[in-house]
């Protein structure tokens, strides 16, 4: 009988090990990360999660404020030449890197040089500049090959200033392990797959920032675990939750739900090349029919509890040139869809295959199934072809899928240009639809430096992509996050970016 007491003893032992839930010090901010950052060296941060974490350590020359305006950061002022290809920046004096190194014009040159190495994931953000020269210690001149509408935004989003001497001394690999910047926080330690610890930079150039003493990122890949962690108080920010997950937080006292529209468009792509050639979708009327015949409102209601926007096109709410009056999603009109199909010679519909990246996005499996069942109502028999994400995105032009495929595209510029260019400029990796009118208009937008003129062009683009749609437009998702109710100043942006320098706790 002696041995039998071991079980209760074990339970007792377990009880002893129960965590004494330590009241979190008010000046430590714990933020969950949905994936382990691949690198904290900005040109190699392969996803948004990584670059968000890295921005706590770095600054750029210019900064985009919460209202979308370009404001000074490490550059105090700048001028742009008449022809729009030359930028001269005046740099902030008296700024030092975390290791004591002085920030000056040489740092900007070094940042551009290390960043434009072609093996970097985001090399293209640096090769947007032709040359970067130091005019004097605190003045730099940057030239671009041609007028570039989004050059300053590109700098603000990518060019994290790095210390040249330190990098020369330790090398890039060591730098990525122990990064040094001018940012609001200093790197303390990192446990791969687990956490990144940072502390406030006491010499930060912006007065009164950051607002917390310590910043800890915890890696929690799984959404339901992040939800559990915010409920148990283990983290202060739980990001990337689904609408149905946040309903579980209703009534939770110490937790507040933050939601915002994401600058991302989900769509069904068509191919007028490869697998799409010779199929019904080459006919404009068929593509219009599919847009009218898809009940995107019903799908939104069912799968996202109505918490997503039906997408009017590729230019969506929050983008430059978006106009709620003229840009409305296709109405759900199955009769019109059937009529269009009949007109195109398919009165009884047709069969077609549609690729779907299984588990590639939140709820995407259900969305794909719902598209098939909705289009089935107008007689189009869609066969959903689920593929692993590896296969899906590893071949150019979605080679593994049939004439149609489901995907999404985000933008971090407040403008639709990255997704327009990526998906519709012939020759690009994920291009499957060639339309000369669209391609020309894309080029025009890219070269138009004037914001208002660009806004006009986006309107034209919307019309063009509406009359002869290269996609079935689906929806623009709403992002849900849950934060500690005492948290102040946390303002994530439409591209799922957030900056923690002005985040603090209420007293």
């Amino acid at each position, binding site marked *: 009988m*002696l*041995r*039998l007491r*071991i*079980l209760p003893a*074990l339970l007792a032992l*377990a*009880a002893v*090990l*129960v*965590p004494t*839930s330590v009241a979190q010090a008010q000046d430590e901010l714990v933020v969950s990360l949905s*994936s*382990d950052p*691949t*690198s904290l060296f900005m040109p*190699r941060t*392969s996803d948004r999660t990584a670059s968000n974490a890295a921005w706590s350590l770095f600054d750029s020359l210019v900064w985009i404020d919460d209202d979308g305006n370009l404001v000074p950061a490490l550059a105090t002022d700048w001028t742009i030449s008449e022809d729009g290809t030359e930028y001269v920046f005046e740099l902030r004096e008296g700024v030092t890197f975390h290791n004591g190194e002085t920030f000056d014009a040489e740092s900007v040159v070094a940042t551009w040089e290390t960043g434009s190495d*072609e*093996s970097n*994931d*985001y*090399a*293209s953000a640096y090769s947007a500049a032709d040359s970067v020269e130091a005019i004097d210690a605190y003045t730099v001149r940057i030239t671009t090959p041609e007028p570039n509408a989004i050059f300053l935004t590109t700098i603000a989003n990518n060019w994290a200033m790095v210390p040249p001497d330190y990098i020369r001394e330790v090398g890039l*690999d060591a730098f*990525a*392990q122990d990064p040094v910047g001018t940012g609001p926080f200093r790197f303390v330690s990192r*446990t*791969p*797959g*687990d*956490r990144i610890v940072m502390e406030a930079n006491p010499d930060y150039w912006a007065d009164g920032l950051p607002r917390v003493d310590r910043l800890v990122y*915890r*890696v*929690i*890949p*799984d959404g339901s*675990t992040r939800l*559990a*962690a915010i*409920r*148990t108080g*283990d983290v202060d920010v739980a990001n990337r939750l689904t609408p149905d997950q946040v309903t579980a937080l209703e009534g939770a006292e110490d937790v507040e739900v933050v939601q915002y529209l994401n600058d991302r468009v989900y769509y069904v792509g068509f191919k007028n090349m490869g697998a799409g050639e010779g199929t019904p979708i080459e006919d404009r009327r068929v593509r219009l029919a599919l847009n009218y015949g898809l009940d995107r409102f019903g799908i939104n209601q069912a799968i996202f509890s109505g918490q997503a926007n039906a997408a009017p096109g590729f230019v969506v709410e929050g983008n430059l040139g978006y106009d709620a009056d003229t840009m409305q999603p296709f109405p759900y009109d199955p009769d019109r869809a059937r009529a269009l199909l009949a007109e195109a010679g398919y009165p009884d519909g047709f069969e077609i295959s549609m690729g779907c990246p299984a588990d590639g996005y939140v709820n995407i499996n259900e969305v794909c199934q719902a598209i098939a069942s909705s289009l089935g109502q107008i007689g189009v028999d869609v066969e959903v072809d689920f593929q*692993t*994400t*590896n*296969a899906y*995105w*590893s*071949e*150019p032009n979605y080679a593994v899928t049939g004439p149609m495929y489901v995907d999404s*595209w985000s933008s971090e510029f407040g403008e639709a240009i*990255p997704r327009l*260019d*990526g998906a519709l400029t012939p*020759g*690009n*990796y*994920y291009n499957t639809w060639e339309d000369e009118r669209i391609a020309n208009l894309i080029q025009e937008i890219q070269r138009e430096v004037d914001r208002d003129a660009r806004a006009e062009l986006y309107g034209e683009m919307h019309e063009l992509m509406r009359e002869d749609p290269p996609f079935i437009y689906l929806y623009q998702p709403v992002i849900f996050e849950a934060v500690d109710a005492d948290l102040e100043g946390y303002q994530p942006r439409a591209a799922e970016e957030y900056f923690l320098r002005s985040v603090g706790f209420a007293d």
Partner: protein
Amino acid sequence: MLSFFARRVGESLALILGVLVLVFFLVRLTGDPVGLMLPKEAPPEQRAAFAAEMGLDRPLPVQFAAYMTGVARGDFGESLRQRRPTLEIVAERLPATFELALAALAFALLVAVPLGLAGGMRPGTWVDVLARGVGLAGQTVPNFWLGMLFIVWFAVGLGWFPAFGRDDLSSIVLPAVALGFAGMGQLIRLTRSAVLEVRRSDFVRTAQAKGIAGTRVSLKHVLPNVAIPIVSVLGIQFTYLLGGSVYIEVVFAWPGLGTLLETAIRDTDFPLVQAITIFLSFFAISIHLLTDLAYGLIDPRLRAA
């Protein structure tokens, strides 16, 4: 005797070589990393540059030769995603996984041995029924499902343990119990049958005939004989636990090799998937070898086989 050792070591080396080849080609069938690694907007030139930098544009045999020469020098390549030596990455994650597997094994032993002993000593009694029931449960309950239930009950519901991560001591309890559950089931069954076996043998009967009380018989006579089969499966159990930790680590966001493998596969990070798989295989092969060699020392008959 020496030839037995030499042969077993030789076989193990050949196996390791085989695993290197197998894993290299298997992993290369999982997809093309270039499309997945780079941002969607990356232009074709940059894709080509990336492939060249990572050596992915060379013919497969050339890549294989480069890989094997690297391995011979102890270089298992760089992770495509993290741009660091894969060995370094594996080494960073190793302690967390070992810690979890050891804790799971400890849990399994702590429950299984007493319960198996008790059940085996009193076959047919309620203790035995309990032992058999728990043993069976261990083999039929999926560990990741158990892990999920634990999170619901003990972390979110009762707030006894953290729901995720590797923090203080309390954070290992739930994942270790979930992971060790299946091993516990097996060990209970093993212990119990070993006890039954020993009890059938003569010397225990003699001891009982002499009137030695039940508990003392179990401790003095049975335990040493039961220990041998248990100890002999521990190494193998441990390698199973390392494999099984993939699921548990994913459920609990435990920063070990399992979560690393899961993301590396999703990223088609060939060198990293290779390094993890090969490391785990090396480990399993070595455990088998050591177990065999130990047996060889104990039981000379085996050497002839």
